[in-house]
């Protein structure tokens, strides 16, 4: 609505004001109309419903790992043996030092996002910890980077224990 280009000389201020007002009201309407179009590209409600994943931990034996999907990403859940807990607590990791106690809620359960912080590949469980085959980064049993190009430790997702053997990954 390009009414501003009007010549207004012969008709006084009232029309000038009226046209400006109408342009503003019309422009606001056009802007408001954009909202549903833009909003439709945001995650839909069924995608948002997957923002949380409930995981039953029973059945994971000590020393075993399970991979679950959360928001489309793999999450490693490792049930650590007392030896693994001890080994993880012994050091602060490599290039991104962080104590193990800060990375777990319950030392028996390590929950980390299985996406290498370097280029986004999924590391494999090999020996103690994980190895990322894309560029050779290595992570220990606390998910901390011990060698290679990865700049940071594996990320810990938000999660909470809802029962003794059940966790919910993601924020409510």
């Amino acid at each position, binding site marked *: 609505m390009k*009414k501003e280009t009007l010549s207004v000389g012969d008709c006084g201020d009232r029309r000038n004001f009226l046209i400006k007002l109408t342009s503003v009201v*019309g422009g606001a309407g056009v802007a408001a109309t954009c*909202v*549903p*179009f833009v909003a*439709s*590209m*945001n995650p*839909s*409600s069924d995608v948002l419903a997957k923002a949380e994943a409930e995981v039953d931990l029973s059945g994971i034996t000590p020393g075993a790992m399970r991979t679950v999907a959360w928001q489309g990403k793999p999450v490693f859940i490792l049930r650590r043996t007392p030896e693994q807990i001890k080994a993880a607590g012994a050091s602060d990791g490599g290039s991104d030092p962080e104590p193990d106690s800060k990375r777990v809620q319950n030392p028996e359960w390590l929950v980390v996002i299985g996406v290498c912080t370097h280029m986004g590949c999924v590391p494999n469980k090999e020996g103690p910890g994980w190895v990322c085959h894309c560029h050779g980064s290595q992570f220990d049993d606390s998910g901390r980077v011990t060698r290679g190009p990865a700049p940071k430790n594996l990320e810990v997702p938000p999660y909470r224990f809802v029962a003794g053997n059940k966790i919910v990954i993601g924020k409510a």
Partner: protein
Amino acid sequence: MPGRIIKWIDQRFPLTSFVEHELTSYPTPRNLSYWWNFGFLAGFVLVLQIATGIFLAMHYKADTALSFDSIQHIMRDVNYGWLLRYMHSTGASAFFLVIFIHMARTLYYGSFRTPRELLWWTGQGLLLLLMATAFMGYLLPWGQMSFWGATVITNLFRATPFFGDQVVVWLRGDYTVGDATLSRFFALHYLFPFLIIGAVAVHMVALHSVKSSNPSGINLADKDNIPFHPYFTAKDFYGLGVFLIVFSIFVFFMPDSLIEPANNIPANPMQTPNHIVPEWYFLPFYAILRSVPNMVGGVVAMGLSVMMFSFMPFLDRSRIPGGAHFRPIYRVQFYLFLLDMLVLGYVGYIPPTNQTLLIGQVATLCYFGSFFLHPFISKAEERWMRARGLPPELLALFEKRPPREKLTREGEAA
């Protein structure tokens, strides 16, 4: 600063002169009524359909196993998906309503007559493109009506001489309407609106070459023309506001009134619904199809019924200028034709019985009769009017016209 930018552009591209020529000094008859708003409205609906369509396509899946579910996903889960979809489905009906009124105006005021034949024919091409686009879009929700509508319409091509069955299979890419059909219809449904944009551009070039017709039906003197902008931009936007009110009532309060209930049932190739009807905008043509007992004849009659409008510049033999306003017999004919369309629409809507079949056949005869008899009617009307003496307002118009134009007009019409 904006002035300098425009100057920079003008040295490289005729921006200002283009705007001046097509908008700020484009001469438009000052006596245009609100019936002349509908071309602009059609352009608006086209933009709305393309915008909502592109955003719907981001969520839609053209796959027989997924498309019905993806529509439900749009309606339930996508943010404002219901709004986009209802705007798009209501917009299809709005498009036809606006175009039909636009055409009715052209017929009533004789806007198709010399020198606007090409303008009228490009408009007819647009109508065909619109019908094709709407038909293909209707398959996409993959409901029962979608499926059986597409089945019936693609079957029409069995009337093709020699290769009928092969043509139908080729169109569908399958023995029945199936996954291949759905995918190609989606591809073409996305493509055709852009062809429509191109055709609209041609339509606009034709319009700006011969200029708008007007209710008097004869070309006005220069002093009776006013610039399109700001007068008609203001008028068109006011009309747009009224249109949007009606449109919003449908979108927000009765959107399902334009969607057949059976289309809320997923397509089932094993079972035809008891009563299949096309969308309201195809009903008169559908009634003509059903009225002819022979299959090929029905298809030809239906195709012809859409094409008939294109012949109007040849069929109208009257040299009396002006539209139905000055031609009493043509006016009666116009309203009878509209009434006939409504009868055909009704017959197309209800399930066929012997009685309605007869009504449909009579209405079909009237439909074609009003076209084929038009040369004789219009000629007789001219004789009758001249014998009676032309009405004073028409004589006044004759006098006002510059003599040269009168000459060319008489010469062309003869």
